[in-house]
């Protein structure tokens, strides 16, 4: 039965059906609605014996999730942006210890300048922490990825992050189909920990490891993480057979095209709409799994592409952008030209008009190696000019705001 739901509420209700046993929570926009809803359900006694723990920070939230997971409890939390960064040390610990924590990241930009809106800077900054990263293209994906995330995490004993575009998805109301408790139970039986703190059978989780074995521990962790690709495929097949909604590490590509745009997250809907109007000239490759990077599937999907355009919702200052680097590595030895398009930073909408122009530019052979979509050259030029004129030009962010929003005028949005 489809229901008209806010993305966050739909995620919270699905997580509840995944039967978490410990939910340490700390609020941060735009994730807050998710843990708020879970808190209400816990208070109403709808989460069984689940412990909803209000903690003092994101660092504490992840630390509590690690402790609970090590004690054999199915553990879940959610965060975004600066909150994810504040967890960074604990993220590496959860992965390094091989604890199957599941976390929703409501993707949001990172300051400074402070910005509460959506991009992928937060999750991309943590791509090397050893977690599986899954990205939802829409809210139905966001719902369906959570049971699969728990099942995957527990199957391979690795933590999983479900990345959901903040506001664009978390705060959007749409018709959604929630998986039933039975659908979830079929893919996600009770948690059987690979390792557990048990006074009757004492073990050390978190032993210090020196140069004699650290490399080998890391080698095995990488191998374990790479197992997420086949495990996800198998779990998603089983889930898809029950629900009729089949997910895969990469979304089914459109028939081979000379130009293919690679993207992840909520921009895919708009992109697919624009690409579908090109009569097959432009294809779209949507990544659902980003870590481990499904290099084989990407290479196979792009084998006929002459020009690959990677839409990036984050970038690597001073270098390129994260997804491009991975796509380039996957395509090593092929002739495909690769262009990076950085777009939608800090909540700037990625519009059909902008994507249409982008594809037209690419079609004329005029798309460069790196492009910032919709960049306001005038504002950039004015600040560069100021910086040439005087040494003390003041803070760039405030200067640009004065240029963009003249005094006395509020923003239209």
């Amino acid at each position, binding site marked *: 039965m*489809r229901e008209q739901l806010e993305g966050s509420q739909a995620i919270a209700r699905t997580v509840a059906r995944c039967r978490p046993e410990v939910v340490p929570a700390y609020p941060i926009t735009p994730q807050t609605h998710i843990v708020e809803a879970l808190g209400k359900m816990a208070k109403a006694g709808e989460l069984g014996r689940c412990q909803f723990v209000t903690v003092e920070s994101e660092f504490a939230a992840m630390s509590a999730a690690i402790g609970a997971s090590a004690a054999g409890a199915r553990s879940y939390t959610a965060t975004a942006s600066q909150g994810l960064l504040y967890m960074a040390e604990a993220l590496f610990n959860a992965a390094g210890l091989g604890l199957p924590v599941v976390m929703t990241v409501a993707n949001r930009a990172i300051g400074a300048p402070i910005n509460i809106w959506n991009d992928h800077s937060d999750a991309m900054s943590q791509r090397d922490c050893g977690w599986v990263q899954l990205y939802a293209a829409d809210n139905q994906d966001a719902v369906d990825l959570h049971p699969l995330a728990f099942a995957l995490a527990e199957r391979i004993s690795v933590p999983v992050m479900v990345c959901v575009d903040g*506001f664009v998805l978390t705060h959007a109301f*749409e018709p959604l189909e929630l998986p039933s408790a039975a659908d979830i139970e079929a893919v996600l039986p009770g948690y059987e920990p690979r390792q557990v703190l048990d006074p009757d059978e004492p073990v050390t989780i978190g032993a210090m490891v020196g140069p004699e074995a650290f490399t080998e521990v890391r080698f095995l962790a990488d191998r374990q993480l790479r197992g997420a690709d086949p495990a996800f495929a198998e779990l998603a097949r089983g889930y898809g057979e029950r629900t009729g909604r089949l997910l895969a590490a990469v979304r089914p590509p459109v028939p081979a095209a000379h130009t293919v745009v690679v993207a992840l997250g909520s921009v895919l*809907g*708009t992109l697919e*709409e624009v690409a579908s109007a090109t009569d097959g000239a432009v294809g779209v490759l949507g990544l659902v799994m980003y870590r481990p990077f499904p290099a084989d599937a990407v290479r196979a999907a792009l084998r006929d592409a002459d020009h690959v355009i990677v839409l990036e919702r984050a970038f690597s200052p001073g270098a390129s952008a994260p997804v491009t680097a991975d796509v380039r590595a996957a395509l090593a030895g092929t002739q495909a030209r690769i262009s990076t398009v950085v777009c939608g930073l800090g909540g700037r909408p990625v519009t059909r008009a902008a994507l249409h122009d982008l594809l037209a530019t690419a079609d004329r052979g005029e798309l460069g190696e790196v492009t910032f979509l919709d960049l306001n050259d005038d504002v950039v030029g004015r600040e560069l000019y100021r910086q040439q004129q005087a040494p003390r030009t003041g803070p760039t962010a405030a200067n640009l705001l004065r240029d963009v929003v003249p005094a006395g005028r509020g923003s*239209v949005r």
Partner: protein
Amino acid sequence: MSDHEQRNVPGLPCDPFHVRIHGRGGQGVVTAAELLGLAAFFDGFEVQAFPSFGSERMGAPVVAFCRIASEPIRVREPVTHPDAIVILDATLLHHVDVFGGLADDGFVLVNSLHSAADLGIDTVTDRVGRDHVAIVPAGELARARTGSPRPNVVALGAFGALTGTVSLDALERAVLGRFGPDRQDNLLLVRAGFDAVAAVGSA
């Protein structure tokens, strides 16, 4: 949805139909988009309702959007070319570009006690046609019934009557679904808005 065939379904003037709602923090702008989406869903349509996430404070200009369509909606961008505009606070008329991108045959609903001429929106009225404009004292109608001047629910009733895109029945289901059966006063508000347009006609 099977609802689509069973119901006395309102028609969409165009498909997809894009709505932009302007107001100020505290007036229920985001809730209005959510309720409109819920009502359209009950009427059997595909829907996407979302806020623009600006400054979340009382009194600040707020915008929310709703797309209504017969086919699933894939696009994720703000509504820049609306087919209907709802303005919950008339003081925004000359501060924010509320009519930006409005279709030539679009609809305009304004919460105000004043006339189009007094509000200075005659040019817009002339462009879209008088039967596509309604000026309803939604805040006053709400205050008279509940003591609260929050105009959103009354405005939605008026919107249903003005545009014919959502049924009164679906709007009533939506407010009861959103606020609970204890809040029957919301039914009065929806009907007050609907009747204000249905009885008097448009501006």
